[in-house]
């Protein structure tokens, strides 16, 4: 079942679209689910489908198409590292190596304590600050160096 908070948010989102086009809100709805639960389970997709009156399969298509939806638990803090060309040229490989070393996990993995997850991301549209990573798809951190990454992790550790 979708929580009260999620349905309230979806209802707000639905006001942006014509009444007979409820499925327009599917991406937002999935985002709300992920914000609350950290990831989107099949059952949640079915709930979203029922709430928006669209086929479950269509929700699944959207959820699997977009990279930023987590289809499995990805830890409390999901770090998404851009590996596209600009970032790679500016050293995203080093970023990943450092994170691997610090967290002891590879791409697509979660630390045993469930605190951190590491994902590969696509271009975040801010190549000027390459290399980049985002935290839970919300906060973007740029011009990454080993020191800066340690600083970021130290801050996250406090939360």
């Amino acid at each position, binding site marked *: 079942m979708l929580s009260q908070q999620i349905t309230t948010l979806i209802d707000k989102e639905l006001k942006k679209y014509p009444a007979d086009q409820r499925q327009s809100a599917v991406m937002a709805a999935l985002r709300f689910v992920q914000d609350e639960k950290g990831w989107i389970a*099949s059952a949640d*997709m*079915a709930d979203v489908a029922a709430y928006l009156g669209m*086929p*479950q*399969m*269509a929700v*699944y*298509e959207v959820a*699997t*198409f977009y990279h930023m939806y987590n289809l499995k638990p990805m830890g409390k803090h999901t770090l998404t590292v851009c590996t596209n060309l600009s970032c790679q040229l500016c050293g995203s490989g080093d970023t990943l190596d450092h994170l691997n070393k610090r967290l002891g996990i590879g791409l697509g993995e979660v630390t045993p304590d469930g605190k951190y997850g590491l994902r590969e991301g696509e271009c975040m549209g801010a190549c000027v600050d390459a290399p980049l990573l985002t935290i839970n798809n919300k906060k973007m951190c740029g011009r990454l160096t080993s020191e800066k990454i340690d600083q970021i992790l130290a801050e996250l550790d406090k939360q």
Partner: protein
Amino acid sequence: MINIEIDGKQIQTENGSTVIEAAHQAGITIPHFCYHKKLSIAANCRMCLVQVEKAPKPLPACATPVTEGMKVFTRSEQAVKAQKGVMEFLLINHPLDCPICDQGGECMLQDMSVGYGGGHSRYHEEKRMVLAKDIGPLVSAEEMSRCINCTRCVRFGVEIAGQMELGQAFRSEHAEIVSFVSGTVDSELSGNMIDLCPVGALTSKPFRYKARSWELSRRRSVSAHDSLGSGLAVQTKNNQVLRVLPIENEDINECWLSDKDRFAYEGLNTTDRLTKPMIKQDGKWQEVEWQVALEYAANGLRHIANGAGAEQIGALATANSTLEELYLLQKLMRGIGSDNVDFRLRQSDFSGDGKQQGAPWLGMSVADISRADRLLVVGSFLRKDHPLMAARIRRAVRKGAQVNIIHSADDDLLMNVAHKAIVAPDALVETLTQVSKALAAEKQGQSASGDAAAIAKSLASGERVAVLLGNFAQQHPQAAQLQALAQQIAALSNGKFGFLVEAANSVGAHLVHATPGSKGLNAAAMLAKPRKAYVLLNVEPELDSADPQQAVAAMQAADLVVVLSAYKHHATEYADVLLPIAQYTETSGTFVSAEGRVQSFKGAVKPLGEARPAWKVLRVLGNLLKVDGFDQDTSEAVRDEALKGVDVAAGLNNAIGGVEAKALSAAGGLQRVADVPIYSTDAVVRRSAPLQATADAAIPQVRMHGDELKKLGVQSGDVVKVSQGQGSVKLFAVADDKLPKGVARVAAGHTATVALGAMFGTITVERA
């Protein structure tokens, strides 16, 4: 109309059509995979790239609308280079396992790669692999690596079948066709995805590895499983039916086939097939020669006709018997002096007999359904009883038609229903009366509120109105009244009305008078007043009758039961003679479809064992009983005799007059709502193993409104005792709040519920 030029050929085509449509009209082939004339345009395979004058790049012909003066080149250097390039990309990840692929020999990709593919691959890296999926007993998705992601199956589900069971998940190189959380594909039209799949990704599970397409001979036939009259291509090898495919006819089944028509063939040659004539002597069944069995049957019938009287003999047939068989059956019965012959086994109201002016039929052509803009469907389990008619209505709705439903169950029709009135069976007449009154009021500018008024308003706003009565309405104890009301409603809305018609040859059976005359007994009366002898043609009384308890009791009480059947079924308990007859694939014959289309077909294979076509068996019985006019040599001669002087078009008439209103006896308690599950309708589909493995063939449950269950103190999922008359069965109870209160939905025609009584009437449900 605008003028364009394709490959130097001047073509006139309709404005708004696409290049590929214009080319196909002109007989120019453009290679394609994802394009299908019945589906929306996806333009994702890129195989149909063509060169267009003044366009800088090749354009996909399927998604490029024609414009005046356009010059298209499908075989130019640029076009062919683009097509070859696409082909090379499509083959990069294709496993090229044609030698072990079921699609081999009838594969679009294979054919096209001969024309556009290279002799060898430049791609030496690893190919991508897609895992196999189990999506149910009918469609095999074992080799999804073969998929080229054209999404035809997905679009078919959404646009034709009305439910999105398959989708394309993930993206780019990882994109694959999947079902949601590995679910099965349960659509009653799923088999069409096999035809649509241009490669060997979706193949027929029952046909898997059975034969190569070029080894099969192909015979034209007609579906025996519903009243649409779908064209079948029956494919055979070594005198066995191995596959059934649709024959395209825009006016009937288009290019589709329901799963029932497609996979029923698996039930043709089951282990309980009757292959030798048998008679019962001293309580033991013995196989005998045809001559012995026929003489035994003839002597028995003669004995009863001479002793107790010919009116003590009754003949029952199912309406998926051929026109020839039904004609000879009624001729035989009338020849020996009995007027008791009927095929309307599930009907319970015969008060319209004599008042009905002709054979009940669709009242319009099948194609008219697509053109209707307002529809009222009364008493029909539409999707399951008439899968392809439902698909037609669904498409009409997508184009803007409004469909209204009056019924006693509210199954999801997978289309937008404008208005519906879901009422208990005893309130159907009242609801239709209200609609009729509201329509009359609407005409005088008054409008009321309520479901009936909303339906009336919808119908009044239409230009081409169709009122359709389903099987449930036809089987209803007030069927004649429902018919008269439908007639009234159609007249008030200047529309047409008709029956969706239960079986493949119901209309034909009426035309050849396989119904009792004024002296005879109808199907219900023949069982209610047991006869001394019965002749059963294709009938399994306990599964095909309105009241199985009564049917079985009548059979058991009879002195002589002559069974013409393809199967050794339950009749072994009460029959005296079993005469093995041929299936519809093994005999020539004729079916008259719901719209009155007379379609003859030839046998595709030889009858199994010693089985013989029923028309031949009846002819010999006629000879043995010394009835005149049983000397036809061919089924065509029987057909010509049966239809001699019959003007089919004039014989079809739904008009009914002088129907007396009769109330249903208010017995109180729960009313039974009985559907005949889609894979329980006739003897062949009941035996088709793949169909029986589908979700639609699950063991029936008792479905009731949640409040009704609460009253009984029963939870959804509990086992309950369901009783009618002397019989009772134990079934799972399921809460279904879409049902009206006061009804219990229990399917008929299924072995799990044969112990129960009539399809309509009161039924008792209690805690087990």
